[in-house]
């Protein structure tokens, strides 16, 4: 690793011990991300204020928990909307039961992250799902699939940045249930697409892991509350 691409007062070995930046690694290997990315990722910013009316995800375990809290707020809000709309046309009894289960699981996750955060929890976010026709099965399930796949990739991508081993374990416990959801929703759309058919799972049988910046960008079309993130 080029020392110039790391904070000048930090040796490469120390950086490794503190956990290196996966995103920076990607950038270095791919030659895509310019020098300074690691600086951005590793230095505390002096700006600790969210945008007006918005929330801030700090670059620590609390920020990561709030990130998960934001994601699960979105998932619960979406499932609630599906249910409030009386489910999509021709939903089977089984589908309605399992979608209700998924909403309950997401709610349990949301409330657990919130409880762990205590007073550090971000506010309740606002959402906009106006673009979705909640009576259309394909439309509802396609968005559901996107959100579930995204959640799995988000947990997978952020887990190694967590310092508290208990939180790592809780993310592990939650993400496999998210993956069960994702596979189910995919199979509702196209049977047998539970873990294949696109890039979500690669040729090595490994699922995509995404950085918070990528996940937040994908979620931003549904979240109206401004989110400032110090996460990579």
């Amino acid at each position, binding site marked *: 690793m080029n020392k110039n691409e790391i904070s000048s007062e930090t040796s490469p070995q120390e950086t490794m011990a503190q956990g290196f930046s996966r995103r920076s690694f990607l950038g270095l290997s791919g030659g895509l991300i310019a020098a300074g990315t690691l600086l951005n990722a590793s230095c505390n910013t002096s700006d600790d204020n969210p945008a007006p009316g918005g929330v801030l995800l700090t670059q620590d375990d609390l920020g990561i928990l709030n990130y998960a809290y934001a994601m699960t707020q979105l998932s619960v809000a979406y499932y609630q909307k599906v249910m409030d709309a009386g489910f999509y046309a021709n939903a089977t009894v089984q589908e309605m039961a399992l979608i209700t289960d998924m909403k309950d699981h997401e709610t349990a996750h949301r409330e657990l992250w919130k409880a762990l955060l205590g007073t550090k929890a971000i506010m309740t976010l606002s959402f906009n799902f106006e673009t979705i026709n909640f009576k259309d099965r394909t439309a509802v399930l396609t968005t559901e699939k996107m959100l579930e796949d995204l959640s799995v990739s988000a947990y997978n991508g952020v*887990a190694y940045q967590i*310092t508290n081993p208990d939180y790592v374990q809780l993310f592990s416990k939650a993400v496999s249930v998210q993956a069960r959801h994702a596979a189910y929703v995919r199979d509702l759309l196209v049977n047998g697409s539970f873990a294949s058919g696109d890039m979500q799972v690669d040729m090595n049988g490994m699922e995509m892991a995404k950085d918070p910046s990528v996940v937040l960008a994908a979620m931003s079309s549904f979240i109206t509350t401004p989110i400032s993130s110090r996460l990579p």
Partner: protein
Amino acid sequence: MSFKNILQEFSKIDDAEMGKSSARRDILKNITRKVALTALPFAIGANSNKATAKSTNVSIDTLNFILSFQHIVAEFFKQAVSLGTANSLFPSTDAQQAFVTIRNHEAAHVKFLTQTINAASPNAAIPVNAKGYDYTLGGTLLTFNDYKTLLAVAQVLLDLSVRTYKGQIGGFVRNPLLTDLFSIQSVLARNASHVRQMRTTIAGGSIMIKPWITQKQTSISNPAFNASYAGEETAVQYGISIVGIGGQAILADAATEAFDEPLTQAEVTTIITPMIIT
């Protein structure tokens, strides 16, 4: 960037570079640990001819334990595809294709873990090999002769996989390998979800086996599989009761479904030992 890509870069390091990591290994020898640790070199700088190796501590014993388990699952799906096809067990092309997809994932996981262990320490770490396995509980199950039994055993092995990985990730906190273990774990959970749906399909609507684990239900009458689900009924996380959490209407079943639970190495070993015959 996954660890497997790092491995590809690592393979480009010549012997001279390899020699440089020996000093680090000497230092590590002085570190007292319960498990064997080894220097895991990382090649950093894909475009550099002078790739330098970094190291982090990885428990080879833990990786080999995961691999020893992963062999059991991979070998099962290999046999399931070949014998299931030979015995005309699959009721549809979709069903057969699902098993092929899962077989390919499991084989890839074995390959990844094997390469990881090989690369971690070429001098000392030897990846465990596959052994001979019995998936019929000593001939009492028609695992490869009856489709329902095949699916039931597949479900147990996949759910158990998720719990096995979960039990070992504590050794990889802040380690780049954690991402890879998470990325494998979520695929195992997807596979488990699908096999559970396949079981619901053949039940013809008479019973519904959910894609997730409710309480510690096996959905299998044979009590031999109970141990694989023991502990899944947990409804308390981090000391917080999930039932009714935050004033929400979360009932006991949903509270247990929302989280998959880890199993320790000892618990997994007890469960899988009867399956190992050589």
